[in-house]
């Protein structure tokens, strides 16, 4: 990795100041960068795909590693909560089992002991070509997406085009399915938005995966009270021990006493350039009772509009299977 300045942030305000671009004209991947657990950042630094002049350590900020009740039945997750804490938290497991499942599905125990919620949401894609130092793909400022026409087995079937990486986060689809919001701190103060609006398509800005501007960091995630604890995260890995999702489904539903679907939120992971919410499938489910037939139809609708490339058409039947299974599981 290139040498960089190391700065410990004492407060959020301090971090924001330290993250101020030292050279506003420099490339976006050569600006000061925040570090939580460092589990993604270090790999990016070592591969020279990011070259920050300064790395701002957020772990020195007190109090950002807590899971707290919001007083309204929901939870607030500090951005520095590590994944293993989330995975083991009794209230998370009771109210949002899908979120504990999503946390557990990530990487290895060692990585989960260090990786943070904020870092998981802001990690960079794992696309092979993005991670090749010597090839300047469009995502790195070049003018080509090498995955298109290249080795694209793991790439996106939704939201691609200019670039075809998949968003790597496992927490993101589940948190969106749980209707979470995210608070961002920056030079202009704090703002809070639905997590679903946090992620952006390559068509919007191919160099970034989210709305964060230079100097901004994620400070907190809010999860509203769930109408029911019926949530699940089904992640399909090629290698169970350690892998990113080949496909994943985050599902949260609320059933009436007669088991009619009152509300459904379905978000796909591992298939899109952003966590891919499927409103048509959600709408289809509302007012119905879940059955093999209904689940199959919802699965079909969920994958409508998928645009596979040469090597990733399998993601369609695979993801449909996961949607069916998630719904069946939540109906049980």
């Amino acid at each position: 990795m290139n040498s960089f300045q190391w700065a410990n942030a004492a407060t959020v305000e301090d971090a924001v100041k330290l993250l101020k671009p030292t050279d506003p004209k420099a490339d976006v991947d050569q600006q000061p960068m925040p570090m939580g657990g460092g589990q993604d950042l270090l790999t990016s630094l070592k591969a020279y795909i990011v070259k920050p002049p300064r790395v701002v350590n957020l772990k020195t900020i007190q109090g950002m590693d807590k899971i707290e009740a919001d007083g309204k039945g929901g939870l607030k997750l500090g951005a520095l909560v590590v994944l293993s804490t989330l995975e083991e938290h009794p209230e998370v497991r009771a109210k949002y089992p899908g979120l504990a499942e999503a946390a557990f599905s990530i990487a290895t125990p060692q990585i989960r002991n260090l990786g943070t919620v904020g870092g998981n949401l802001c990690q960079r894609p794992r696309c092979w070509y993005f991670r090749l130092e010597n090839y300047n793909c469009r995502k790195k400022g070049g003018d080509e997406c090498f995955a298109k026409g290249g080795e694209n087995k793991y790439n996106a079937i939704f939201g691609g085009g200019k670039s075809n990486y998949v968003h790597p986060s496992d927490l993101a689809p589940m948190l969106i399915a749980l209707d979470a919001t995210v608070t961002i701190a920056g030079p202009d103060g704090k703002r809070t938005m639905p997590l679903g609006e946090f992620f952006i398509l390559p068509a919007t800005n191919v160099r970034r995966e989210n709305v964060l501007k230079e100097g901004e960091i994620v400070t907190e995630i809010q999860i509203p009270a769930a109408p029911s604890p019926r949530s699940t995260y089904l992640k399909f890995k090629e290698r169970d021990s350690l892998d990113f999702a080949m496909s994943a489904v985050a599902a949260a539903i609320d059933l009436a006493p007669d088991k009619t679907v009152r509300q459904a939120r379905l978000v796909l992971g591992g298939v899109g350039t952003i966590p891919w919410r499927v409103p048509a499938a959600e709408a289809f489910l509302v007012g119905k009772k879940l059955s093999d037939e209904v689940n199959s139809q919802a699965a079909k609708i969920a994958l409508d509009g998928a645009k596979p490339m040469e090597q990733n058409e399998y993601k369609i039947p695979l993801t449909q299977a996961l949607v069916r299974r998630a719904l069946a599981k939540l109906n049980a």
Partner: protein
Amino acid sequence: MAKKTVKVPKIVDGVPVGEVEIQVDDNGGPSWGANDKHRLLNKPMIRVDGAAKATGTAIYTQDVRPKGMLFGRFLASPRAHAKVTKLDLEPAKKLAGVKAVLAVVNVGGEVRFEGEPVVAVAATTPEVAEDATRAIVVEFQDLPHVVKGAEALQPNAPQVVARPPRIQKQGDAEQTAKALESCDAVIEAQYTSPMLHHCCLETHSITADFNGKDTATVYASTQGTFTIPGDSARELGLPQNKVTSIVQNMGGGFGSKFGIGIAGQWACRLAKEVGAPVKMALTRREEFLAAGNGPGSIQKFKAGASKDGKLVAVMATQYALPGIGNSNLAGQPYQYKAEHTYREAQAVHTNEDASVAMRAPGHPQASFAMESLMDELAYKIGMDPVEFRKKNVQDAAWHRQLDRGAKEIGWENRNKTPGEGKGNLRRGMGCGIGAWGGGGNAQCQVDVTIGKDGSVIAAVGSQDLGTGTRTYIRAIVAEELGLEMNDVVEHIGSSKLGNANASGGSTTAASLSPAVKDAAYNARVEMAKRVAPLLGAQADGVVFDQGRVMGNGKSLPWKQACAALPEAGLTAHGKWQPNLSSSGVHGASFAEVEVDIETGHVRVVKMCHVQDCGLPLNRTALHSQINGGMIQSMGMALYEGRVMDSDLGVMVNPGLGDYKIPGTLEIPEMIPIIDDGDDRQAVIGMAEGANVPGVGAVCNAVYNACGVRVRDLPITPDKILSGIIAMQKRMT
């Protein structure tokens, strides 16, 4: 002394290349005795270096740091094939801490694969060395490249190597083609496997401790202690006897670590340039790109069987894909006998690093294809795949092993019709057989020294790759002298000690253990002569047992007996004895898998491998070897493979995150079985035999589970799903 001529395997850099005849003493000498009559050997033993390794106190080459040591680093080619048109080393030389910058390829020279070293740098820290490689200005002019075997087979593919292809032909094509016409069942199929990587925990590493004076010590992560001094001396400009190599512990080789290699070559050259020690430890990415690999394969068959289960005719075309190097696949029809066979084989080259020996070179590829083909034929004629195999191999060992493995896995419970059953999770079973040489040769020189204080040292320069060499050296000596493991210390891993062969072709145990046994035997005989008078016994009537030396109804504790030795103690020499080792091992693997037919996920539920090896030295180590073999074979079957981008000419998965070896959650219930039906009272290397047949066993189990035959490794979920969808389309 009378001499006799024996044949021993010839191994070059881990690859068996036939046999050579050698002369050995014909002296009777020691013998092992019955396999079930040992006190320490052929029992489970804890590895003697286990605690040091588990607690991190074992010193590996990467831990070595002589005073003033510099860190070496390569600037590697980002191109698959290009001419170097500009090279400016000055910016690197100007960096503080940079001590040497040497061009590996000069302007006008060519690089022929991604990762090929272009410049070597030595600096005071690894970070400065890395910065220096990036400060170098290098420009390339691209030349045509090809990085996939199938593309290299196209008529207009760029020529990668200058030499014309050498096509080996064996058998009678015409007769075989004719015989195929009368077969009851014929399968025509192509099987492919990707280039594989050794994935040693310790990457290729060498530290050349040289200060510009007249001697050097070279610490190496190597499979051959004695392959290091010659290579190093040449690079350092020293006579070979001025260079010592040290290999105390090493983190895996699997065929990839013979000689000093590119890392050692440039560690030495940099050290010579600066006159200071230099360590060159490859990064994991470099390890994938430029430290050797196992060749990929494309194998085409047309083969036929008769209704009654005889393999009648096999036509095979075998392409080995060794990058810019060379390699051969084991010839088809592998271990099976067919009445008519015809085989064409050649290497097809790509712009990738040269293949080297890897875990039974050429066998897993050949076995995977042949075992898949055998399975396809068995199903086509409607015969039990185990029965079909037994009808087409003669050796009784395989018959015995197939029966044993079938029993362990519960073969009778397999799907009679592939893919049958209800629900999404379908189970299936498969099997395969394999073979290996594992014979010994006469290169080891062992000394056993008994001190006047009773201490015992066994000394030989051999390396221990992690296979348990240290442990059996101790056990053999302890057993011979009637002592316990802790009473013996082994000194190994230094070229200052007696010669030993390189660990290639699973030949170490069969080469070294006879020499250790011979030395221990000679030490015992010598000791008996010294102690006999004290006991009033004849020398040949002295017995060594339970830490005592006994004879004539009297008994002395070991230490007291040793006090009778002269001041210098006694040292006995031992060398390889042909009757103590043999050659030729057999193995059979069975696998049970569970395939999720909606996702294509394969879970290996259970694997069993039955392996013979003559006299088992250490049953725990053997079980570990067999387990390791099963894991490697399931890795090859389901997960592993180098992936290349055709246009860019580069490897897209050069890391352990993306090149997927099995992890803890992938490991099935494993049943390692030492085939005690083998009563040869001789040591035979078996390790490489254990990773051969499992590949086909897993592939065949997948087919038996879900009815999809995947002929292109690794069998990943996308391939299974595509197969299932195609099958469902055919059925509707």
